[in-house]
């Protein structure tokens, strides 16, 4: 029964089938030319930076003799007679001619002439030069990241890469981040990409982080433990030809993260980064002050004796109370603070003999901008690669990262119950006056919200992740390599929290403690054979054959306690809680087995062909539905290598790419194909009795979701590659979508995982890099990227739509997935102004008609009103003047029926932008460098559910504070607004277009100014480089959106444009330096 043991056995089953197959192809040897005695010339090809150029071509001018530099940049060449000149070339570097003049040693330094072409790009189980790519891959390297001093790598991707959409849940440090590559692929099965970190495949699973059970559902980024300074490069595989090698896990795109390796230069480099920054909220929302609030409560009339006073002694309450007699609070001033960020990291890269070593240590500390919200990260890493002999290289790496977040859960816009700190800042009453019936909120007397957060609540949530990796790379022949890589990924997370009986979160349970622990263990083992062969310098072949196993083990444990008589020790002694809730535990295991192959062929650097095939089997599905095959094929034509293009001098690179293929997605919770029973508890004469009941129903046919993807791309380099353009158009077609479908509850179940429906994404991506000016003193580089994606639900397996419900709060039934519409479609009523006085007939108590224009706020209650015939009514609700009105669109017979009922709901919002863009400029002048970067989205909408809470109404919590804007402009008989409803609006809980706002924005995300110190003193001190910088994050934003920030991550992937107010975005100004020893 020991499954983790089983998990390790059987690995051989697939792995070593490969070895057996390893056959005659290994015995190819390169033949030497035995010519006459010739002069031998040697040398080393390096780049300006000193790095060796590997694979540079060295030819003798006028002869067909040549060589290629090795991994250290060294070459040797037998010179024919009369050889006079060497031509050294490498794509992306300027070719150089060197005269031989009888030298025996010629070292050549090549200068860069191109932008991205020489770049080596990680593709699955190997790497490729960008110039040789047939698929669509976007990359970002460490240099561009380290300049900015950003603490979370995923945030750095935002807006920078075409087709990669990054949204963050909130401004909270460590908050969860959502990355979508080329649109939402899937409805319920995860739509986040697969991460491959040094070979370890990681599916992002936010539930790896133990999160608070109170105050709301804030999720954290499980990959926040990774120190961005450790990353050498991030490569994002987008099309099927690139991702098919990851088969069943590749459908959402793949992000390959490669960490830094020891230096190749044979010297030791120590790098120290230190930065300090201050942060502050970018936005405030004007809320009512204490007096306005009391006026509002008085006008509501719910608790007249509390909020009103009898001023003239006639026994009738006739005026609101004076706020100055009570405590008054401005929660934004009290709860939002200036935050700070401290970041230190030090790394060392070196080579000792044949061993390359890279190591680092990092520490980050952030004081969040919300009171008591702090965040820390510790990280460490070591990596070595050792060349045992000319055939064998081995290496290993280990990294550990740990984050600790503390402070009351912020409920950053999740599906929380609106009781997080963030919502509290805006909804808590600005005074300590409250009525008897509101006293349930303050069972032990009034406690200020700030005190609750600082003194009465404790939360500490930690996450530690260790990623380890080891490999053996054996060169069987010069063409054939065998590689065996094993990686492990272990995470552990622990949450401890305590809320006293004086807090919003602990008052009901008389003190609440919660401890939960989550650990995961996963491994990936892969064996690959890599074959590379060049024939006649014309044909270049490579083939890859591999097998892989991986497993993911998840364990969770939690315990909660309530009813603490002594609350001083809090969560640290939960035995004091008189009520220990039943502890919970959960264990799941998902295993996968795969085999894959890739073949690629290049002819004359002109024609490219790549084919992939992967087969995957997943334990998430039952036998018969378990295996999926994922093929892809792609080709490219480098036109500028054709003779007829030689004359077109300004085109330095022109390549067409095309690919098609299929990839899969199996990312659903484990065991969903099986039926299950869960325990429940009933009672008998006061005793507890345990029962068992069906929890999920079986679906034996559950299988992969597959995505067919087609991509056409163009790479264009102009003017010696000073202008580089990469463009792609794509079409993605997802079949057999894995949907946790709501099913009719009459079945006894409310949801089931099913393969239903079809979804398409089509889009265009464009990125442009230009080196506008390049002189020795001044350089200017611009980047621009643009993408648009159109998402369309083609079918839902017979259903016309799926309802999307986001639990808690007043607006829950907010969206639908509708055939023919994109995912993220809001669904509800169309707001149509307010009911006005003239919509009613008015009578006094004697029954005499009254002219509505004579009625005022003061005397309105003396009259009786009835809605005039012909004015639209609201089904089941008797409306009053000032209530919101909606458009009568339809009725049971398809025609407007004069009343607002469920037939009148329609599409009211689209969460998807029309396009995304990002653009930046990098300048350097002498020792200065300046960077700035904009990102933006256009044309998307957000349903701002927060508005519902702070604009009064007859429903919802009537003790919430209001926005000043609403209060000043609200409907009254004297101010017949058609926008803002009256304070007793009885129709505010209708999901309607009233809450929908344009969420387009343009943000100046980052400005960085750096100065590189160049001085003789540095040389004397053996300091290789010293740069200091000033960086401003989130400089400004241009948007019409009225919420905190239009960049939100909703609780539901099916309705991304839904906001219940997120953690305020912060602007940070930081200074730092970078020292290289």
């Amino acid at each position, binding site marked *: 029964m020991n499954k983790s043991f089983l998990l390790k056995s059987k690995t051989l089953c697939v792995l070593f089938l490969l070895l057996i197959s390893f056959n005659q192809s290994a015995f190819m040897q390169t033949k030497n030319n035995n010519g006459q005695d010739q002069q031998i010339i040697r040398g080393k090809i390096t780049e300006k930076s000193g790095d060796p150029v590997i694979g540079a071509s060295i030819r003798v001018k006028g002869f067909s003799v040549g060589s290629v530099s090795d991994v250290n940049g060294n070459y040797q060449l037998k010179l024919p007679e009369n050889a006079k000149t060497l031509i050294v070339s490498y794509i992306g570097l300027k070719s150089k001619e060197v005269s031989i003049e009888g030298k025996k040693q010629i070292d050549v330094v090549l200068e860069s002439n191109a932008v991205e072409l020489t770049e080596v790009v990680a593709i699955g189980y190997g790497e490729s030069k960008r110039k040789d790519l047939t698929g669509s891959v976007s990359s970002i390297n460490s240099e561009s990241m380290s300049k900015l001093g950003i603490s979370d790598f995923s945030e750095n991707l935002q807006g920078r890469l075409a087709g990669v959409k990054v949204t963050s849940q909130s401004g909270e440090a460590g908050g969860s981040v959502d990355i979508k590559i080329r649109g939402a692929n899937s409805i319920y099965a995860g739509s986040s990409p697969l991460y491959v970190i040094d070979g370890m495949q990681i599916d992002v699973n936010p539930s790896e982080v133990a999160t608070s059970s109170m105050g709301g559902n804030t999720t954290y980024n499980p990959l926040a433990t990774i120190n961005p300074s450790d990353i050498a490069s991030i490569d994002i595989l987008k099309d099927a030809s690139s991702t098919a090698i990851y088969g069943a896990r590749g459908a959402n795109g793949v992000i390959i993260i490669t960490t830094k390796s020891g230096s190749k230069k044979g010297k030791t480099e120590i790098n120290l980064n230190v930065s300090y920054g201050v942060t502050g909220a970018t936005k405030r929302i004007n809320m009512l002050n204490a007096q306005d609030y009391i006026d509002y409560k008085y006008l509501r009339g719910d608790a007249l004796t509390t909020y009103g006073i009898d001023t003239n002694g006639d026994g009738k309450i006739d005026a609101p109370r004076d706020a100055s007699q009570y405590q008054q609070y401005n929660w934004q001033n009290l709860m939002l603070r200036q935050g700070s960020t401290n970041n230190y990291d030090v790394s060392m890269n070196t080579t000792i003999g044949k061993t390359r070593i890279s190591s680092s240590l990092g520490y980050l500390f952030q004081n969040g901008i919300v009171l008591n919200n702090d965040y820390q990260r510790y990280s460490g890493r070591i990596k070595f690669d050792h060349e045992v002999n000319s055939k064998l290289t081995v290496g290993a790496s280990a990294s550990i990262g740990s984050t600790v977040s503390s402070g009351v859960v912020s409920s950053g816009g999740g599906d929380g119950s609106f009781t997080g700190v963030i919502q509290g800042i805006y909804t808590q009453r600005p005074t300590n006056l409250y009525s008897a019936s509101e006293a349930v909120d303050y069972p032990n007397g009034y406690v200020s919200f700030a005190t609750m957060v600082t003194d009465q609540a404790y939360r500490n949530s930690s996450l530690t992740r260790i990623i380890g990796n080891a490999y053996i790379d054996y060169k069987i022949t010069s063409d054939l390599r065998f590689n065996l890589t094993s990686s492990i990924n272990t995470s552990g997370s622990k949450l401890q929290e305590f809320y006293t009986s004086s807090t919003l979160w602990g008052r009901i349970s008389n003190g609440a403690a919660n401890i939960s622990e989550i650990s995961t263990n996963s491994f990936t083992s892969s064996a690959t054979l890599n074959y590379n062969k060049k024939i006649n310098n014309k044909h270049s072949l490579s083939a890859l054959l591999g097998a892989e196993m991986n497993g993911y083990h998840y364990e969770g444990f939690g315990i909660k306690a309530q*009813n603490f008589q002594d609350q001083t020790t809090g969560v640290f002694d939960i035995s004091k809680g008189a009520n220990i809730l039943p502890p919970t535990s959960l264990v799941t295991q998902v295993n996968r087995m795969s085999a894959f192959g890739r073949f690629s062929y290049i002819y004359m650097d002109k024609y490219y062909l790549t084919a992939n095939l992967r087969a995957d089997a997943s334990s998430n599905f039952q036998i018969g539905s378990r295996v999926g095959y994922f093929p892809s094929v792609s080709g490219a034509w480098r036109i500028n290598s054709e003779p007829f293009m030689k004359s077109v001098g300004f085109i330095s690179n022109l390549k067409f790419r095309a690919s098609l293929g299929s990839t899969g997605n199996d990312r659903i919770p484990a065991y969903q194909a*099986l*039926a299950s029973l869960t325990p429940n508890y009933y009672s008998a004469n006061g005793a507890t009795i345990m029962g068992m*009941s069906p929890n999920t129903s079986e679906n034996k046919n559950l299988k992969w979701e597959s995505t067919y993807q087609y991509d056409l791309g163009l790479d264009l380099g102009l003017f010696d590659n000073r202008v580089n353009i990469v463009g792609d158009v794509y079409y993605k077609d997802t079949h057999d979508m894995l949907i946790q479908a709501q099913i009719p509850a009459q079945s006894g179940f409310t949801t089931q995982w099913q393969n239903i429906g079809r979804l398409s994404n089509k889009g265009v991506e464009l990125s442009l890099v230009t080196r506008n000016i390049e002189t020795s003193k001044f350089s200017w580089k611009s980047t621009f990227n643009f993408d648009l994606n159109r998402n369309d639900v083609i079918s839902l397996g017979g259903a016309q739509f799926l309802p999307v419900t986001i639990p808690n709060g007043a607006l829950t039934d907010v969206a639908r997935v509708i055939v023919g519409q994109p995912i993220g479609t809001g669904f509800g009523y169309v707001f149509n102004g307010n009911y006005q006085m003239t919509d009613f007939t008015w009578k006094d108590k004697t029954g005499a008609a009254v002219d509505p224009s004579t009625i005022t706020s003061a005397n309105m209650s003396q009259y009786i009103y009835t809605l005039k015939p012909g004015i639209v009514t609201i089904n089941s609700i008797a409306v009053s003047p000032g209530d919101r009105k909606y458009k009568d669109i339809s009725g049971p017979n398809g025609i407007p029926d004069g009343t607002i009922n469920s037939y009148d709901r329609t599409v009211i919002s689209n969460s998807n932008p029309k396009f995304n863009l990002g653009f930046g400029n990098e300048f350097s002048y002498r020792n200065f460098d300046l960077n700035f970067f904009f990102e933006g989205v256009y044309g998307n909408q957000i349903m701002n559910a927060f508005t519902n809470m702070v604009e009064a109404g007859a429903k919802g919590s*009537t003790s919430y504070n209001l926005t000043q804007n609403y209060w000043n402009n609200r409907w009254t008989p004297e101010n017949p607004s058609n926008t803002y409803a009256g304070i007793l609006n009885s129709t505010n809980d209708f999901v309607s277009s009233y809450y929908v706002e344009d969420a387009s924005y343009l943000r100046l995300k980052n400005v960085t100014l750096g100065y590189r110190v160049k001085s003789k003193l540095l040389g004397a001190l053996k300091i290789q480089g010293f740069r200091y910088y000033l960086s401003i994050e989130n400089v400004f934003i241009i948007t019409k959106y009225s919420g905190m920030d239009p960049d939100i991550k909703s609780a539901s992937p099916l309705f991304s444009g839904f906001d219940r107010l997120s953690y305020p975005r912060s602007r940070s100004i930081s200074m730092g330096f970078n020292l290289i020893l």
Partner: protein
Amino acid sequence: MKRYSIKYLAGLLLTISFVSCQDTPFLNQVPYSFTSPQNFYKTESDFKMALVGCYEALNTSSITGGLWVPDGTYARGLYYILEGCSDNVCANNSAISCDFEKATYVPSNQNLGYFWSAFYAGISRCNYLLDNIKTAGISDSVKTQITGETRFMRAFYYQHLAQCFGGVPLNTSSTPDNKAPRAPLSDVYALIISDYNYAYKNLNSSGINTSSANKWTAGAYLGTLYNYLASCKRYNVGASLVAQCPLNSFDWVNADSMSTKAVTVLSDVVNNSPYKLLPQAQYSYLFREGTKSYQYQECLFLSEWSDVFSDAYSTNTELFTPQGSNTYAGSYGRHMPTYNLYKSYLVGDIRRDWNITGRYETGCVTEVVQNVSYYVPKVSVPVTSLLQWCTGKFRLAVPGTYSAHGLNVSNSLNYPLMRLADVKLQLAEAFYFTHEEPSARTILTEIRQRVVDPAKTTIDDLNLGYHNTDFVQELLDERRRELCFESKRRIDLIRFDKTTSAIQNLPVEGNTYVQGAITTLQANWSYNKIWLPIPQTQLDLNSNLVQNAGY
């Protein structure tokens, strides 16, 4: 050539490895943390656990997939649904639950969906059990007992759904048709009657657990159902809506036959069951947290909660307990009694001041009943007081003194679903419609006898004061006085077609909150609301469902 060999090899390998390896233990992962039906439903103990699950749905807080549903069950939501739209209570809050006390419910009201989903989950649990027990190797007597209780619960859930929504889809198998349309009431009640009958015929005097239904419970529900159907037919309930929704017709009912059957079965329960009316001294024990053994003497069925700390505890903030803070185990005071209900009692009827009270406030004294302490709420102040006006029928122990919960929000108060007093009043009704009015009036007297405060009045005065020449009206008034806040009033008014008049004739009186709430209720009530709307989500998911009239 090499290239071809590699290609072939790749193909070969993929084939070999996947044909041979897909059925490995590595990939045949069996869940660690949950039980699958294949391994369950085998032993007697399995079925007993499954049976507990069949009961649990009646007051569950969460069902399949973790859906949080207390707002749709006897955990709290059904109190609003079944007491609301009546002359007993009105809403003191803007919560969604209160829509049922204001008559502002619409198809998208999510509590409707919770009610529907939770009770269908209960039905499904019963069906799983019933499908599996047929072939199980357990003794016949146990099989019959478990089957009887399970069929009782299936009927219980269907009866609630049918009385609230009208005709509903029938699901009698563990592999049901998810898209089945609504069945007409005749079919739904045929199933319910057959299930109750089976339970009544086959069960013993006591069930598997003390909270189980037994023969008498089944008989009581069966007789009550006969009365319900008879009255719905006699009073043409929903007749004006049948044209729009023929499913909800009662035309098929033979009222007299139903009444006759009701007399038979209810007489059996009243005469032969061990249940009795608690005497006046113990009347309040029916509604206290710490007197479960007394509750069992009169209650044939309860929604039960546990004294020990576990998942099976109730939250009481929305119960019919006096309003008050944590300290006193008070409620939020969501339900306000009407002044009209208060006035329906004569002075000297102890039920008035028991059912309608003031708040728990500073200075509240405690009383000890059966070794358990309770705070005593203030006495109600009718008409004017905003605060001293609560539904106070149920009483929780002083926090921390009785159950292990110790919190005001979690308690173990068992909520009566079927008391012998109710059964007797049902028998009185059946007697009346089978032309035995004297026997019926005897029962009314019997019910009144235990609530006479001898210091203030006599049974004769009560009988005289409560007398109405319209026996049905008097019976309904008595049921209201006896069973208020026990989730009976909505259905009682509907089945005699009196809801509209009860609401529209309700005087707008009492404190200003109550007046406002009554006005709201009157403004929003319309006759079609005797049927709850089918939840919008369910209509969306199953296009074969039709909506009730007027929504």
